[in-house]
């Protein structure tokens, strides 16, 4: 009896909440426009940023310095700080200093959204750079669009800039450029049956999605698929399984260290077919870890790794060498393509600011109209109202690991 009463009294509370919410919902959630202040959402940042920003230009940065994507996020942050320092040392822009507000999202999209709200409301930033991971970038987009502040995303997922969103620009090469480059290479070699492996995270899946969409066009069929977790210690099980399906080549879409483990495991199992990987392994740690197993691995990446092997006619060559030299001198760490994305993003912003576009709307318009043949580390960008990524496949090259070094396969 007592228990029944207890249960009833417990059950009462959700009912009470339902009534309460039903009662409150009406006045408090009106978005009809008449009571705009009631909604509490961030006000669209109209006009120049007010308050503390008078002597400086506040720019928001949200990158994954810690967590699963830290290999990408840390060089991104370091690059942004380096460029801001350079610019401020040279007197800033129009007498104003570039002030970066940097937040670490710990590779967690929830934290990215929280940080974004802080950047928009507390620091009144004029532009946001960041979103190291595709998930963080995608999670931030609704708030960005609502707040109407330009966002330069550093992540690769195609959905960030397709379909085009008014305030969102993407500076990383998407999987929609990387995968076709690999497929074209296979086609040229006359390879038809391949095995596909990817890490079970947003990066690996982005590649797989693109592969499944495009393989047929290049006459390529997958004889087997496998996934692994980025922190797995051994991919022998997956590779053992795939080998039984007799592929003519192995495609791997992941980052380091797992990309190196795959290469080592494949060598251990005696794989003698070509191994192709993606821009995720474009990191010297791949060669160091995979050692002999890295030999002969072919992958697609930006030109940074092989900048000195590029022909002098390549418009990106001077920029690439300058970035690499500056980064390596300052941090004593090899520069990588992810930091390069950050370099491009902040240089585009600086170009807009120098042209006198200092408000969010003006910056956005400048980016869309005036980033034409913009030579960056990632590639040569041309933004249009229909294209907020603006890269062509000439931003990518094929690289082979040979004698423990990167070798440009074709310019």
């Amino acid at each position: 009896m007592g228990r029944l009463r207890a249960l009833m009294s417990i059950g009462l509370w959700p009912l009470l909440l339902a009534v309460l919410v039903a009662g409150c919902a009406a006045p408090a959630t009106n978005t009809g426009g008449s009571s705009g202040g009631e909604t509490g959402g961030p006000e669209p940042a109209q006009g120049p940023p007010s308050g503390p920003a008078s002597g400086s230009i506040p720019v928001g940065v949200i990158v994954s310095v810690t967590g699963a994507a830290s290999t990408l996020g840390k060089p991104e942050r370091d690059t942004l700080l380096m460029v801001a320092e350079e610019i401020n040392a040279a007197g800033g822009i129009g007498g104003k200093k570039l002030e970066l507000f940097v937040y670490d999202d710990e590779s967690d999209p929830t934290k990215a959204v929280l940080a974004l709200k802080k950047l928009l409301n507390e620091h009144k930033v004029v532009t946001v750079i960041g979103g190291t991971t595709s998930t963080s970038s995608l999670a931030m987009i609704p708030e960005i669009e609502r707040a109407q502040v330009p966002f330069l995303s550093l992540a690769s997922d195609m959905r960030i800039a397709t379909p085009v969103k008014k305030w969102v620009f993407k500076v990383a090469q998407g999987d929609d450029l990387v995968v076709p480059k690999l497929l074209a290479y296979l086609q040229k070699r006359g390879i038809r049956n391949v095995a596909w492996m990817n890490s079970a995270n947003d990066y690996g899946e982005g590649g797989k999605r693109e592969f499944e969409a495009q393989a047929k066009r290049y006459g390529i069929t997958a004889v087997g698929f496998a996934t692994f977790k980025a922190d797995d210690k051994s991919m022998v099980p997956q590779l053992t399984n795939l080998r039984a399906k007799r592929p003519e080549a192995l495609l791997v879409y992941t980052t380091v260290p797992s990309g190196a483990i795959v290469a080592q495991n494949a060598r251990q199992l005696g794989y003698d077919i070509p191994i192709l990987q993606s821009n995720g392994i474009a990191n010297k740690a791949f060669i160091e870890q995979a050692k002999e197993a890295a030999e002969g691995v072919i992958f697609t990446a930006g030109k940074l790794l092989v900048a000195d092997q590029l022909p002098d006619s390549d418009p990106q060559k001077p920029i690439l060498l300058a970035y690499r030299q500056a980064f390596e001198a300052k941090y004593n760490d090899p520069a990588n393509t992810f930091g390069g994305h950050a370099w491009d993003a902040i240089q585009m912003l600086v170009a807009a600011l120098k042209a006198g576009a200092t408000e969010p709307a003006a910056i956005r318009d400048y980016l869309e109209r005036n980033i034409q043949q913009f030579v960056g580390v990632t590639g040569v960008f041309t933004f249009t109202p229909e294209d907020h990524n603006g890269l062509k496949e000439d931003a990518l090259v094929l690289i082979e690991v040979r004698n423990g070094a990167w070798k440009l396969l074709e310019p």
Partner: protein
Amino acid sequence: MDAGTMVLQLMLSGLTVGAIYALVAVGFVLIYNVTGVLNFAQGEFAAVGALTGAWLSMRGLPLWVCVVLAVLVAAAVAAGVERAVVHPARQSRPMTVIMLTIGAGMALRGAALLVFGTDPLAMPMFTEGEPISIGGATILWQTVWALVLCLLFFAALVFFFEKTYTGKAVRANVMNRFAARLYGIRPTTLSFWVFVVGGAVSGLAGVVVAPITGATYDMGLMLSMKGFVAAVIGGLNNAAAAVVGAVLLGVVESLATGLLSSGYGDVISFALLLAMLLVRPSGLWSRAEGKRV
């Protein structure tokens, strides 16, 4: 490659991973039995060992020096964690102490990131050379090392607990804290030393795995979790059972991933292990209640 070779290959691969889990799990069980603390910073000690070893080897030190130093550093870090975090909280609830070890793990992870950066560090294999071929399947020399070191450590453990006076005293302490005190054994001293040993064995795990997987600052969390699971499968109070639990976990994972589904391999292996726990609710073979080391 026929089906038999494939299964053999998968089992050998599982053995490799299992040996790594085993070294972490043994540290878990040791610390748990002597101090009653589930130390979730265990994997972090392994990460410290792996990073130290790899960093030193990249500076050109001889391999054995790297290994020894890595183990020592991991042991020292574990000792520091015991003194700074576990010892002051010895009167707290067990759950609070577990959370303290997790907090310590976070701090260690951040420190490792500061010192070693985000890129994975590489380390040479202990023995260079082609993989060993067994009936068409292959196994890395490094796996042999992991297994041998695992067995050696285990033998040392057995010798210590069964043959030496101190070892017997420690077992006495585990069985009856009060009685042990009467014989002049201070539980706090014991707690310190068991962390040193637990840290050392985790450091060893780290430095053994580094050549296979590289060393990253965030490799610890996953090792802690797998080590914990392996230790629980073994019954948490028996180091031998923890080793068997770890190898079982590695082999089941490998077979499920290779034969059934690469994505759902871990789901299947977990379901199997849980089902097994339900059949034998107190671990693989704890016939009798009560703790053993």
